[in-house]
């Protein structure tokens, strides 16, 4: 059992992961990961490189098939279902490395985020919402996405994921390679998005940032969860400070 710090506020469950294992050939990347995200939660996954953070997200969003364990979304079993069917069930995943389409325009990228929706008015409204979050995207909407800066691409990746109106947003390293100021903007918007009712499962190298935002957080080590707790409690923990905050 992982060590638990602090007490978790009880919320109706949105995502439930239990005992998930993932293998890449002979290598076992995840050895029985269990975690949960409640409705309206921001949950952070922190850990060193290669601990299995990205694999966990991929197993949740259907990019990887778990070899064992189950994944439930809003009470429905979605284990091993192909990625493209999960968007319709309320999940959006902004993958590692942003995954924007460089040869498509910014607007086309955003429209692809709403691929499964057909409510034109709603899409237009959401587009405005994204432009409200990140005004620079409006200025660049006709530009090819490949010409954006790293920070703008990250904004685009997050906005594109939000265009499907997800209940749960999976984010993989949104701060990677970005200037501190840009990172701050992005995290401010994430807080706002969460306040509007979107739950977030966040993988982040920058433990300080992640724990500051998260209601609840898990620490992954070599494919297993070793500790969990409220963001504040983990920030205060000596072990976490030594290992992940460089103090």
């Amino acid at each position, binding site marked *: 059992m992982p060590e638990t710090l602090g007490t978790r506020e009880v919320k109706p469950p949105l995502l439930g992961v239990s005992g998930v294992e993932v293998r890449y050939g002979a290598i076992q990347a995840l050895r029985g990961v269990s975690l949960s995200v409640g409705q309206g939660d921001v949950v952070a996954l922190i850990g060193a490189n290669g601990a299995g953070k990205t694999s966990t997200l991929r197993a949740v*969003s*259907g*990019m990887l098939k778990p070899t064992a364990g189950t994944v439930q979304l809003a009470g429905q079993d979605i284990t091993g279902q*192909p*990625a*493209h*069917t*999960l*968007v*319709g069930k309320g999940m*959006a*995943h902004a*993958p590692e490395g942003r*995954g924007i*389409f*460089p*040869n*498509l325009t910014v607007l*086309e990228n955003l*429209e*692809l*985020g709403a*691929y*499964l929706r057909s409510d034109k008015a709603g899409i237009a409204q959401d587009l405005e919402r994204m432009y409200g979050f990140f005004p620079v995207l409006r200025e660049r909407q006709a530009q090819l996405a490949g010409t954006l800066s790293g920070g703008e691409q990250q904004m685009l990746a997050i906005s*594109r994921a939000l265009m*499907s109106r997800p209940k749960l947003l999976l984010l993989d390293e949104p701060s990677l390679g970005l200037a501190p100021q840009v990172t701050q903007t992005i995290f401010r918007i994430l807080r706002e998005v969460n306040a509007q009712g979107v739950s977030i499962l966040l993988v982040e190298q920058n433990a300080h940032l992640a724990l500051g935002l998260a209601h609840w957080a898990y620490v992954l080590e070599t494919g297993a969860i070793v500790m969990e707790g409220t963001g504040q409690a983990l920030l205060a923990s000596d072990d976490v400070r030594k290992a992940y905050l460089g103090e």
Partner: protein
Amino acid sequence: MAGLLQHLINGLAEGTIYALVALGYTMVYGVLKLINFAHGDVMMVGAYVGYAAAFVLGDGALGSLWGAVLVFLVSILFCGLLGWLVERFAYRPLREKPRLTALITAIGISFTLSYGFQLKVQPEIAGKKVTLLPGADPRTFPEIITPAEWVTLHVPAPAPAPDEVDPAAPHDAADDFVEIIIWNWQVISFVIALALMGGLQVLVFRTKFGRAMRAVSHDHRVAALLGIPVDRVIALTFMLGSALAACAGILYAIKDTLIQPMLGVQLGLKAFVAAVIGGIGNVQGAVLGAVALALCEELVVGYASSSWRDAVAFGFLIVVLLLRPQGLLGRVQAEKV
């Protein structure tokens, strides 16, 4: 001058047919990164299905608009189905395997089709001989469009050298002009090809499906994360390419009047070369490369020797690969590690 004009007209007519086939190569390469060697053979099948459809319709329907439309439709449907089958059962199982695996499979399918069609299978069903496979001999494609001159141009003839002119002979006005004939089928073929290309352009760049196609082409894993049904997009791309190939097959048959089982290999290779010249994966590039290649060939035939025609494409290809490996309109893409 007159000769050049005639060559330009021929080259343009030929180029639009190459372009229709080249588009299929480029689209499939776009979504799968696969050189679909069997694509040319799908075109050949399209020509044969058109032949069979015209044959079944009989002489009564030939030359009528509805007859021609029916011939095209049957062939498009058949080839679309063939493209779907090939993708579903030969390429899809190999999608996560090394790329060479699918390439070899494609060569295998090309071989099976082009040599399979050289077999003659004519079983007797209910007392009637039914041809299932046509055999290697060329067949004359029925005239689904009755040939007629669309326009005849009179172009000034080059003045004869002074020592060739016989001063005693009376001047004949007919010698001052050379006739250039543009046939109705050349125009129809050109218009159909242009309409198809325009339609494709709209589809790829102005519709939701086109956006999905381009997304899959860039990264099918990310595309799936956005809810795009990648398998279906790829299957539809194949069917679309095959349908274009079917049209190209019939247009080619109308132009050349003879069809034979190897025509797909020959024309397919050239169309593929055209796609690479234009920048593989690039829709406008395929059209540009095809027209450029056809014009080059036509000029070589006109001013050098027709027997070198088939070497032009590959000579052109090697020059382009040396000078501009990404093709005329292609973008340089960093190798993914």
